[in-house]
């Protein structure tokens, strides 16, 4: 395994551990967030943004990666899919209590129902990609080569 593959694996594992232990991958904490009964997830996401925003600003000013290459941040395109896709995802997040990272975290934790959620996610993403040419016009999406945005 090369060094960068190990880096992504370890970074993903640390990310997954934090999601698991913080409540971000917990059905009850997600419902508590959407019911405005639990501050935990608002605190997590808010703190992450408060840390990331000035960090991004500094990194962009510095303009280089750790290895000295020019920093490159590809911006996501704007389109109506941001709204329609966002709402659909929000419904799915509520139903499962998981967003994409936590789907994988819950699988790792041994929660068996998360395997069904993961199967649904993959079928949903596969259907989206397969149908993309037919979704461009109704949702005002960018052409296929561009896509909706990576992330």
């Amino acid at each position, binding site marked *: 395994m090369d060094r*960068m593959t190990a*880096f*992504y694996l370890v*970074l*993903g594992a*640390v*990310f*997954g*551990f934090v999601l*698991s232990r913080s*409540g971000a991958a917990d059905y*009850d*904490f997600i419902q508590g967030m959407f*019911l405005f009964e*639990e501050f935990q*997830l608002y*605190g997590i996401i808010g*703190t992450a943004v*408060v*840390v990331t*925003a000035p*960090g991004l600003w500094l990194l962009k000013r510095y303009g280089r990666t*750790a290895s000295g290459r020019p*920093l490159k941040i590809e911006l996501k*395109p*704007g389109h109506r899919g941001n709204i329609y*896709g*966002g*709402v659909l*995802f*929000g*419904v799915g*997040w*509520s*139903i*499962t209590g998981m*967003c*994409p*990272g936590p789907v*994988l*975290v819950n699988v*790792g934790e*041994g*929660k*068996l129902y998360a395997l069904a959620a*993961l199967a*649904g*996610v*993959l079928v*949903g993403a*596969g259907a*989206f*990609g397969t149908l*993309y*040419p037919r979704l461009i016009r109704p949702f005002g999406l960018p052409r296929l080569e561009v*896509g*909706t*945005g*990576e*992330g």
Partner: protein
Amino acid sequence: MRLILSGEEPLHWAIAGAAIGAITLILLLVANRRLGVSTGFENICSLVVNAPYFRRESILGSTSWRLPLLLGLVIGGFVSAAFSPGGWETTWDLGVFDADVGWGAGGKVVWMFAGGLLIGFGTRLAGGCTSGHGIFGVSNFEVPSIVSTVSFMAGGIVTTNLIYRVIV
């Protein structure tokens, strides 16, 4: 509130949030990548689905980093469970869903698969999820990310309130 996984209290939100922010910045500083999980599902699809959408350079060219990141998330969940009281074990526990809705394993499988479909289709239609839009995009003050984040929070708030304050 305690975690379904272990019955323990969660990490403090400030610690968890700061850690996620640090992970986002390290990924950019070291690897020149913007954090995002949902595109990784397309990378998995690209292994088996041949549609032109999955043959794009932005997918084929990112598989070598997105798949290890996704696998890392699974490993992180496993390690968390293994080092929790009680250790790693398979479970169907679903907290308040068990208490208020009360469906068995079969019902949960259908429920989770349906929700998963919406997550997979919705995040890709929106061009990102909680990480790519909600954390990276919002932190970078990108309008499409702010619009997406408001949309998925609205979708979740309405759905959970319908389920737990109206239906059950």
